[in-house]
């Protein structure tokens, strides 16, 4: 049960506080921002979903190169179109909040980086990741040689069992020794 009625009641608020890492203020703010995005005719429908295109108009997600992946990962819709309900939205904010644990963050980061959804980060995933980070256009991409050298380096650093892909455990191991991850993997409304 989600809520898009104009007010969140106290019981729901404390339930969300227990199930997410967000504070009361943050949940109320999230509810406000979510309600602003809901189209007028659906404002009273419980558990309505907002399509991905509307979510991506949020300033926090607009200029993020991973915005579509984020929506797809947190979306629980059956047709896998990246639409988010209020519950999904809170899940998103909770994973990206200041007080989420490293395990949660690394788990979701892994899923976001896994472009083909196969459970590991293969060479193809890593290539796509690098292109997202650098810009994606022809003149901002690395040359094929540089890309190969880069991916070889990444695999050398993170692939412990030398199978050519990075699985979740290896990813979490790398992330736990990365000092910048927690401070950069953060979205605050």
């Amino acid at each position, binding site marked *: 049960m989600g809520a898009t009625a104009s007010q969140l009641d106290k019981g729901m608020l404390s339930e969300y506080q227990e199930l997410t890492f967000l504070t009361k203020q943050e949940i109320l703010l999230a509810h406000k921002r979510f309600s602003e995005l809901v189209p007028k005719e659906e404002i009273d429908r419980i558990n309505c979903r907002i399509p991905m295109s509307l979510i991506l108009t949020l300033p926090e997600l607009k200029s993020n190169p991973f915005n579509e992946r984020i929506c797809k990962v947190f979306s629980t819709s059956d047709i896998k179109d990246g639409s988010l309900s209020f519950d999904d939205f*809170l899940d998103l904010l909770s994973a990206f909040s*200041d*007080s989420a644990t490293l395990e949660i963050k690394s788990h979701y980061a892994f899923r976001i980086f896994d472009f083909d959804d196969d459970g590991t980060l293969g060479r193809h995933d890593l290539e796509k990741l690098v292109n997202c980070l650098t810009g994606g256009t022809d003149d901002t991409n*690395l040359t094929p040689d540089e890309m190969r050298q880069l991916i070889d380096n990444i695999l050398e*650093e993170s692939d412990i069992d030398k199978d050519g892909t990075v699985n979740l455990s290896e990813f979490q191991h790398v992330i736990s*020794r990365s*000092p910048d991850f927690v401070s950069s993997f953060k979205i*605050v409304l």
Partner: protein
Amino acid sequence: MEVDPVFTINSSERITFIPLLDQLPSYQSLLYRRKSSTIANKRRGSSRSRFGSIGSVKSTVSTINRHDDKEPEVRPIRELTMSMKDKRREREKRTVKAQDLGNWGQWQRNTRRYLKRMKEDSEDRLNSMKLWRRDIHQIEARFGTGILSYFSFLRFLVVLNLIIFLLMFCFIMLPIIIIPYTSGNATYSHPDSGNVCSVYPSSARRGLVIFHEHITDLLSGGGFLEQTYLFYGFYKVDKIHYPSCTYNLALAYLLTTISYLLVSLIWIVKRSATGFKQNLVKDEDSFQCFCNKIFAGWDFCITNEKAAELKRSSLLYELRTDLEEERMKQEKAKRTRKDKCQIYTVRFILNLFVIAVLAGCFYSIYLATTFSQEHQRNQVKVNFIVDLIYEYLPSIVITMANFITPLLFSVIINYEDYSPAFEIRFTLIRCVFMRLTSIGVLLFSLWSQITNCGEGVKCICGYNATLYSCWETRVGQEMYKLTIFDFIIIAAVTILVEFPRKLIVTYWKSGFSKWWGEQEFGIPQNVLEIVYGQTICWIGTFYCPLLPAICTIKYFFIFYIKKLSLIKNCRPSTRPFRASSSNFFFLGVLLIGLALACVPVGVSVAQINCSQACGPFVNYTTSWEALPTAVSELSLGPKNFLHALSSEAFAVSFFVVSCLAMFYVIALAGAHKKVIKQLKEQLDMEGQDKRYLILMLCQAQGLSRPQPSSSSSKPRSCSSPSYHTSFNSDFPQGLLLVHPPPNSSTHV
């Protein structure tokens, strides 16, 4: 990548769904770990501070050791990686289970939850009162976490200075202020009027005072400001006698000085502890630098479109630089002997040149200080402006030296052929050294003036009493001038240089403006500026107790000036500063400043005779003497204990014990590193073994069965929770039977 032809991995082909793999214990344990935790994590993993989540790493790692003695399902629901719907279901399941606990158990649970909620609420409220929260959030959104670290460092300094000021106020100024209102009876350190050392002429201006003389006084700390709470010379109270006890103000002055240095040290070390650990790990063979850049490279806080573009280009630049550096390293290994000799000679010459430049700067600071002091002594008034310039001459020379030398160093470093990362660090070290040592040189030249009584004549009072009747106030005045000048320069440069630069570059398109370019917010130089100011504050607080308050106000205004400059004039630098390493860098430089500040304060307290004409230490030879005198007045027990603490035996044994502890910890770290390496190799071997065995098994199974159709091989991903395994799929099983596949991807 694999070399063995049997197990070569090709990313385009993968192996089929093999039901055997599902039954492997490793996979089962992953599933179990996901559903209900074997890793109990009772506490909330992180606090609400910025680096809170790093703390959760510690807790996660430490709880792995405890996992076998805690029952599952103690993990808080919000730490489970499920969607909201699943979390609700889990919660209902737990509530049903908890109802079996009985009333006592339920009450326990409820109270625990209530207390936790209270704690979170109060932490939240405390956090919302943090200074400049919204401003910093704005900056973070536009410029990322690298520049943010500079501003939170500035905020830290504001709070630190406030605490230092409160210390000085409560223990030194407050007792003096409340003397008229309480029953205290103060004994003053009245100088012996017959002694030639105790003459202190009043410097207050008499007669008609022209307005600009007030300004001069305000800017130089002389005149009407000299005999105020601002400077050391005003504190004439020695002891305050109350009916029940005596408050030894001289001792309090000394102890407060020591304590503010200690408080700063402890606070900085505490703050840098996390950064230091990570930096130590990071510096080992440029550990993991590519993974960090790719996986943790994007700043999710950025909301500005332009900033996002800049971030992308800076990431690209960083990656290209790192790849190039790697290639250079490989080339460097191929360097010939002759090349090496050449490079070392060049480096040696350039380092000599750098030392010569530094020596030249220090000498000019020395000259400027002596000239300025002579002029102040002679009291020849030329002109209002010229007088002010003569007063501020040391500050001006220091600022000019600090402006020119970084440019010089950044040009020199290009010829020394170091790796890019080392270049940045080395230039920074040189600039830090330059900035902080210039203060030391200033103080040294001041002291040489103070203790110089003429050619070959020994000073009667221990210092030149005729020229400097109250030398501590004079030193305090110099520190005060440095602080004021520093603040004026920062404000002036922002308004008079950066603002016009932005206007020129935006509106007048020419070759010149393209060459000059937009102002970059160079974090290292800005940090050096404020560390320089903080070092002056630490040194000057002993002579000028109100200086921390002045510095607090100064940094408060600097925050807004810098924020304005950042938003209006600057663009983010192309060479980004990593947030974590920058934290360590800032606090490291601050510690160097603190260490450098302790030296002058220590020398002046312990070595140089305190002035006999002013201040609370008139009855002692040196300021330090107040402490042994007070200790000798204590009763026998504490006295012997304190004597034992300060004896050589204690100091030597303490030193030996700390050395042993350090060696032990270093040896432990080395041993752990070795173990990790061995375990990694073992893991690799295990993976290969398993692959081989499974392959053999499947071949054996295939040989004893008729050929299966390829339609039985289904892609794995849609049927399994694939995020917790690492098995790939989509490989036609038929190929297994014909010949060993050239690839395999079954692993732990």
